[in-house]
């Protein structure tokens, strides 16, 4: 199994979610994060004073999938969240040691 973490632009969340559900992903977790990569922060001006905002808001999605689905998940995210601009984000793929469904106790791919 694989655990996939993707940092994407917040505005892309809905299209990514729909596309992932379309290829058979049955669940995911999202959180609001901030960070920076090559897209540096920006400046905001309030009452004539400049404030350097070095972190950019992003959305993190986390998905646990079977090995057979993992590559398609990565490709789908790339397609839906990409825009050819810096700041589109990154995807990280981890090996997942185990997964358990809390209600029933099922383990492994059955729990996904």
């Amino acid at each position, binding site marked *: 199994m694989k655990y996939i973490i993707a940092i994407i632009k917040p505005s892309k969340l809905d299209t990514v979610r729909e596309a992932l559900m379309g290829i058979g992903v049955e669940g995911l977790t999202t959180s609001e994060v901030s960070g920076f990569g090559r897209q540096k922060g920006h400046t905001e*001006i309030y009452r004539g004073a400049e404030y350097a905002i070095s972190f950019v808001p992003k959305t993190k999605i986390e998905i646990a999938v079977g090995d057979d689905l993992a590559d398609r998940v990565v490709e789908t995210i790339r397609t839906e969240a990409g825009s050819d601009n810096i700041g589109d984000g990154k995807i990280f793929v981890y090996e997942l040691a185990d997964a358990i469904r809390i209600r029933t106790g099922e383990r492994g791919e059955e729990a996904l």
Partner: protein
Amino acid sequence: MHYISRNLRAGSFLTLLVSLISIIPSDAFAADKLSEGNTAWIITATALVLFMTMPGLALFYGGLVRSKNVLSVLMQCFAICCVASIVWLVAGYSIAFGGGNAWWGGLSKAFLAGITTETLSGDIPENVFFMFQMTFAIITPGLIVGAYVERIKFGAVVLFSTLWLIFVYAPSTHWIWGGGFLADLSWLGASFKGYATMDFAGGLVVHANAAVAALVIAKVLGSRKGFPNELRPPHNPGLVMIGAAMLWVGWYGFNAGSALAANGSAGMAMTVTHISAATACLTWIIIEYVKFGKPSLVGIATGAIAGLATITPASGFVGPVGALVYGVASGVICFYMINVVKSKWNIDDSLDVFAVHGVGGMLGILLAAFFADTSLGGNGLPEGITMGTAFVGQLVATIITVVWAGIASYILLKITQAVIGLRVSADDEIEGLDITSHGERSYDL
């Protein structure tokens, strides 16, 4: 605001008097009778001015600070309202309006002694006048909050505000509105005979006093950690707008209520107040657009306050076209002054109390000398007073007010510092006042 003193004499001519009364038209004695229309308006105005602090100013300031400090700002405004109310009853009202001498009203009206539900002040109940004035005594120390946010000790806020009301606000009110020595500047010279400082609703009494105290506190207290280059922006510009809008609406009570009557003078005060605010807003965002390319919500909200503060002392004296000038002048000058205080003087008057309220109030006071004249659309200067004379009179009153406010605020601040300390610890400041001073979190996200 006008100080009216009457001596009613009962004596051996009572009978003659009674027969004379029947021939004199009843208008001549209107000042001794309760005016229901005026009373109703001033009761309403009192609510409007209280609304300016609770919650207008609280939200306006609250939105400008970081989220970890927003509750502390709301708390400071709320607590000042409570403390100022008690101080006003116990001593403040009497020191301001108790008669006394030219400097100090005395304590004859402490606890509203001798004032019943029938007692009048002019043609409204004195208890209504007392309450109306109380709301001014509430908002003035509330304005000072902007200077010391994000690092002040809560106890210091309470103690300083109490002392300040007694030794700065109430005396200053007495000098200008309570029949004190700035309410009749004849002592300046023959050409000033009959001239009263023109401060209709508090350019000096409220805004200049608060702003000078703010500057002194900001300097003595020291800057916030991270000033000037590593600060965080306003956490909720939306709250700032909501607060500013409440202040604008409440300001009708502040300025139009200061006419102490439901009449055309109040109506004109409301008009010029509104025009000045609207003009200042547009001026501010035009400047922002030219300088930074984007008009901002915090900017338009601040512009409104600048316009409102500046017209305050002149609201009973100038006309609508004068108000347009006030709006443009306040927008330009207050905008520029923010930078002067923070960058040139390097003083962390965090929410720009001096630049907006202080400079605005003083500007309004000085411009009134000109725009009160009928030639510039005003209601007219007093008989025998020229624009030049008026300007000198306004300037003298301004200097006296500002000097006293500065010296006294400094002394009271040092007393507060000795008794209770001024600033929270560096660790508390980093963690935020909401949790460290009040044990509460603003947003449970």
